[in-house]
């Protein structure tokens, strides 16, 4: 053993200063040792020190191993004192952040060491005790009064829930979701992102074959009330007929259909988009013809809400908040209310409120995530009398996607029964319904609505005209909840054929059947307040004579007004018509869980935000808000996404990251639309100059112009890839200098075309572009069926010129389908194939695409240099503390240099790679619906037209797609779906 002991000691002493002596037994702590050793030790010490002194040449004596001749005591002692002080300090401080017992070798560790100090060797006990007393190692203790039972008590639970949803509002189905979903905090709400179970395919199957359920209650509803003409004139400034039907569309105005459009800042139509909305007009009331006051709901995504609301207020001149309706600070209110309840009521009563999470949010949630609870939520205009109110969170909205969503709806919901004997009324509950039942007209209307609802059973959701609205009043869905979860399937016996069904499929629901009591605020509130608590229902159920039989509540049963709105699936394009269609159901608040569970018990599968994204990708509709790059909220979303992706990127070790510079990807996390459109505009101008004067204006631009626009002038020289490679590598260097003059060129443009880019939403033009994109064989097929003028027109320079001039900086939303392998990713690049590529493709059917030559990382040295500089500086700083502080700190100018990412002033994005860049992908994945990679994205209109001009007829609309972290281009077919 002594041998080992010595070895250990030698190890211990290895890093100690020679001037310090440790006692061999290793006392409890250095401090104690110092005090213990006292006098005798000092002699020994001195001798040692003397020796060291000489070796360092401290004294002015000859540097030899002998003893110094003399010694000045005071500086010597001072130096020693400083040394000792430093040593003591070092000994008390732990350098690493390990615990004391972790410094022991394995064989000396004991199981309970971390919480029992006595298990440690005595010399370490002091330290361990000190460590255990530190606050960070102590367990967070819960307040004494809150044992688990107390915490789970309803009142405390509610208080806790209320506290937790102060910042991000919970939906009514939050607790259900939180148990099953990955939750994210977005747009001021807590939303389910994706289920925790493996269900990617299952969700796809649900939306393709059965029914997928989504909670869209976080969507915001803005209510406008006013005279029809006033509303229409105000709203007409925010939209344009060019981009499709507006608020004034006849079927929508009648209230029969839901409309959808993109709203713009007033009078700025092609630019200044604000965001997509859907809207429903309340049907005109037959009885009250005289009053032309109409009610309009505008539904929008919370990301766009603030912009749209502000614009609406400006357009309608609604500036004054209504005093009477200023929202109270209600966020704290539910808690207080429940507390007062507790004090008043005891025992049984208190327990009655025990349906917990369902009951609580019922309590007048006015403050939602997207606005300040202290602000008003209702505005009125003095001049026009229009009233705008913010009904966010007042109306719940669930979306059922899939062909069998009808079956789920019709099985889960039963139309409310009409009260026959009107004498025995229950004054507090359903008074509105009793009132309604007295009116024979209303009763017949209810029966008609019921008949329509019954008819739906035999239809699939895509058979109904898109956007059909059906109002209905239903009974309590909790009453006929099945015992087990089952899958609702259509019943062949209930298939009806005949005039009624045909009328429904052709014309949809008539306007008066779209009427619903949901439009009436008072009725909604009374329905919300008079909801029968879950527990009450259960206790009634338990009193049934035959357990499990149907519970007939009779007139006491709640009646809930709802609104059903058909959501069109895939309407654009050729294939899969009506894919992903479904129904939206609008409910009064408070009834969330009461409707949610019955749907799930009928076999609906629940999806989150990710499933919504996939749904919109498969049915090829722009996703909210990522596919609106010209809206302020869309830009903000893109910025946020960039930040997240960059953070994720930086979390990886540098050697394991993709070097995007080498891949030739300029912005892997963000699509530089602005730059793209600007560059295309510049290219366009350059090519025109080239045509006009036939003189090369600038060496750079002409070379680029040749690559893309050359063929239009009939002098295309097929460049060998080798030359391109050289070009690409040389461009890297050239472009760095070239950037400045190009940007200057753009600055001049900015003055002329005063605005930023916009997304093309003009229907006619889109249809024309769509026809241009089609390859010849599709056209011939089409012409046989229905020849159209659009198809016959060919994209030539003459026809394209006016388009390009009118929309110099427009983006077009396109869909891409990969021809062969490959699945596109987020922000993949859409490029123009060269003549060579197309030639190879036509020759070899298995040619899957060219490769991008590897770029050189010109910034690598800079990054390394910067890193070295930083290191030096940090060392320097350490030195500065002891030495003089004269060393001035060089301000790090480019501290955002990250290895593998292109720093900010971007070169010409279009010609950075060997293929000319056209646009970017905003969503992309392998599509289960289509069986190949699919993507949607935006391309520059100018670029697209240029490409179409040059492509041969048979290969129109073929583009190349390249993922940000890959060098492989893959062929894809580009289509514009209108």
């Amino acid at each position, binding site marked *: 053993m002594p041998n080992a002991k010595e070895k250990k000691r030698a190890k211990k002493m290895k890093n100690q200063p020679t001037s310090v002596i440790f006692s061999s037994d290793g006392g409890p702590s250095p401090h104690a040792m110092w005090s213990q050793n006292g006098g005798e030790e000092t002699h020994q010490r001195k001798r040692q020190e003397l020796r060291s002194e000489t070796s360092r040449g401290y004294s002015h004596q000859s540097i030899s191993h002998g003893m110094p001749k003399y010694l000045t005591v005071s500086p010597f002692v001072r130096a020693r004192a400083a040394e000792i002080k430093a040593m003591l300090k070092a000994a008390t401080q732990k350098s690493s952040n390990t615990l004391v017992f972790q410094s022991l070798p394995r064989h000396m560790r004991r199981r309970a060491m971390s919480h029992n100090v006595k298990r440690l060797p005595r010399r370490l006990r002091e330290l361990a005790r000190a460590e255990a007393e530190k606050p960070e190692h102590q367990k967070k203790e819960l307040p004494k009064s809150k044992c688990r039972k107390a915490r789970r008590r309803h009142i405390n639970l509610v208080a806790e829930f209320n506290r937790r949803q102060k910042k991000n509002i919970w939906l009514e189905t939050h607790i259900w979701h939180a148990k099953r979903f990955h939750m994210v905090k977005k747009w001021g709400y807590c939303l389910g992102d994706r289920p925790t179970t493996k269900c990617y395919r299952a969700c796809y199957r649900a939306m393709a074959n059965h029914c997928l359920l989504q909670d869209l209650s976080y969507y915001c509803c803005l209510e406008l009330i006013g005279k029809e003409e006033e509303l229409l004139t105000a709203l007409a400034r925010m939209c344009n007929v060019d981009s499709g039907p507006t608020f004034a569309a006849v*079927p929508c105005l009648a209230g029969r259909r839901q409309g959808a459009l993109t709203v713009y800042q007033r009078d700025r139509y092609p630019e200044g988009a604000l965001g997509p909305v859907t809207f429903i007009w309340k049907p005109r009331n037959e009885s009250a013809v005289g009053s032309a006051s109409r009610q309009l709901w505008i539904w929008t995504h919370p990301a766009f809400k603030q912009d749209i609301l502000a614009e609406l207020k400006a357009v309608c001149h609604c500036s004054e908040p209504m005093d009477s309706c200023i929202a109270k600070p209600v966020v704290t209110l539910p808690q207080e209310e429940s507390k007062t309840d507790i004090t008043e009521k005891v025992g049984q009563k208190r327990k009655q409120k025990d349906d917990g999470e369902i009951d609580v949010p019922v309590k007048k949630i006015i403050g939602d995530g997207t606005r300040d609870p202290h602000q008003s939520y209702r505005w009125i205009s003095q001049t026009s009398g229009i009233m705008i109110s913010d009904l966010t969170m007042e109306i719940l909205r669930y979306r059922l996607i899939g062909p069998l969503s009808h079956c789920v709806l019709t099985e889960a919901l039963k139309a409310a029964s009409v009260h026959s004997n009107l004498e025995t009324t229950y004054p507090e509950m359903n008074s509105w319904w009793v009132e309604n039942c007295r009116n024979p007209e209303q009763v017949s209307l209810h029966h008609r609505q019921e008949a329509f609802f019954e008819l739906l059973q035999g239809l699939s959701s895509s058979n109904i005209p898109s956007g059909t609205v059906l109002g209905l009043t239903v009974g309590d869905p909790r009453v006929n909840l099945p015992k087990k979860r089952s899958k609702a399937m259509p019943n062949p016996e209930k298939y009806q054929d005949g005039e009624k069904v045909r009328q429904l499929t052709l014309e949809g629901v008539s306007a008066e059947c779209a009427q619903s009591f949901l439009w009436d605020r008072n009725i909604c509130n009374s329905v919300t307040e008079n909801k029968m608590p879950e527990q009450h229902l259960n206790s009634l159920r338990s009193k049934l004579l035959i357990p499990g039989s149907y519970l007939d509540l009779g007139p006491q049963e709640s009646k809930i007004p709802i609104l059903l709105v058909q959501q069109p699936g895939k309407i654009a394009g050729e294939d899969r018509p009506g894919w992903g269609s479904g129904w939206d159901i609008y409910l009064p608040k408070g009834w969330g869980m009461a409707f949610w569970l019955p749907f799930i018990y009928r076999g609906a599968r629940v999806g989150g935000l990710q499933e919504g994204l996939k749904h919109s990708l498969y049915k090829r509709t722009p996703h909210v808000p990522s596919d609106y790059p010209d809206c302020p909220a869309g830009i903000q979303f893109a910025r946020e996404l960039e930040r997240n992706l960059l953070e994720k990127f930086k979390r990886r070790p540098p050697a394991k990251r993709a070097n995007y510079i080498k891949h030739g990807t300029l912005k892997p996390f963000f699509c530089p639309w602005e730059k793209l459109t600007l560059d295309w505009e510049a290219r366009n101008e350059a090519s025109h100059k080239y045509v006009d004067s036939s003189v090369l204006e600038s060496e750079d631009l002409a070379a680029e112009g040749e690559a893309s626009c050359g063929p239009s002038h009939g002098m295309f020289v097929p460049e060998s890839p080798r030359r391109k490679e050289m070009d690409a590598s040389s461009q890297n260097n050239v472009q760095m200098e070239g950037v400045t003059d190009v940007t200057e060129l753009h600055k001049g443009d900015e003055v002329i075309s005063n605005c930023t880019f916009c997304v093309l939403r003009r229907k006619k033009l889109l249809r024309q572009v769509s026809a241009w994109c089609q390859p010849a064989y599709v056209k011939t097929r089409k012409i046989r069926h229905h020849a159209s003028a659009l198809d016959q027109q060919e994209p030539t320079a003459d026809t394209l010129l006016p388009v390009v001039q009118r929309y110099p900086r427009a983006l077009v939303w396109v869909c891409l389908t990969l021809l062969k392998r490959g699945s596109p990713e987020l922000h993949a690049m859409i490029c123009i194939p060269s003549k060579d590529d197309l030639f190879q493709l036509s020759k070899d059917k298995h040619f899957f695409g060219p490769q991008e030559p590897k770029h050189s990382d010109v910034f690598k040295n800079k990054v390394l240099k910067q890193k070295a500089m930083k290191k030096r500086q940090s060392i320097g700083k350490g030195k500065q503390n002891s030495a003089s502080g004269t060393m001035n700190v060089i301000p790090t100018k480019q501290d955002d240099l990250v290895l593998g990412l292109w720093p900010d002033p971007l070169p010409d994005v279009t010609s950075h790679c060997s293929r000319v860049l056209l646009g970017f992908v905003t969503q992309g994945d392998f599509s289960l619906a289509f069986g190949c990679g699919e993507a949607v994205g935006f391309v520059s209109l100018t670029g697209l037209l240029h490409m179409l001009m040059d492509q041969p007829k048979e290969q129109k609309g073929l583009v190349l797609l390249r993922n940000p972290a890959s060098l492989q281009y893959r062929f894809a077919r580009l289509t514009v779906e209108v």
Partner: protein
Amino acid sequence: MAEAGPPTEAERALRRRLPRRLPRRRSDVYVNMKTDFKAQLSRCQKLLAPGAGGGGGCAELCIHGLGLAINRAINIALQLEATGGGALRLAAHTSTVELADAAEPEGDSDEPQARTRNNSAIHIRVCRAAPH
């Protein structure tokens, strides 16, 4: 573009809807023109093959074809019969399917319109002949 634009095709967008869908049994095969012929044939063969598990074991099969796919449906049925070695019997029925087209207006002033049109369809029952 708007001034000298192409003659407007129509102010309406024609949207064709899928036919009404009946609930589908396992033994119903809807033939389309997109899937490979071979794949559809082998699917039918698999369904007819004996054995309860793995997709087989259907006593009879219904092959439905609509419009352009009628030819293909007949083709599949005949192929099945030919390869079945006399063990299969066919029974064909024709019918008419009502299809709906909707014309959604592009502007504000029009009502949406819809029309029905008829298309022919064929339903071929393929069943095992009773053993003699």
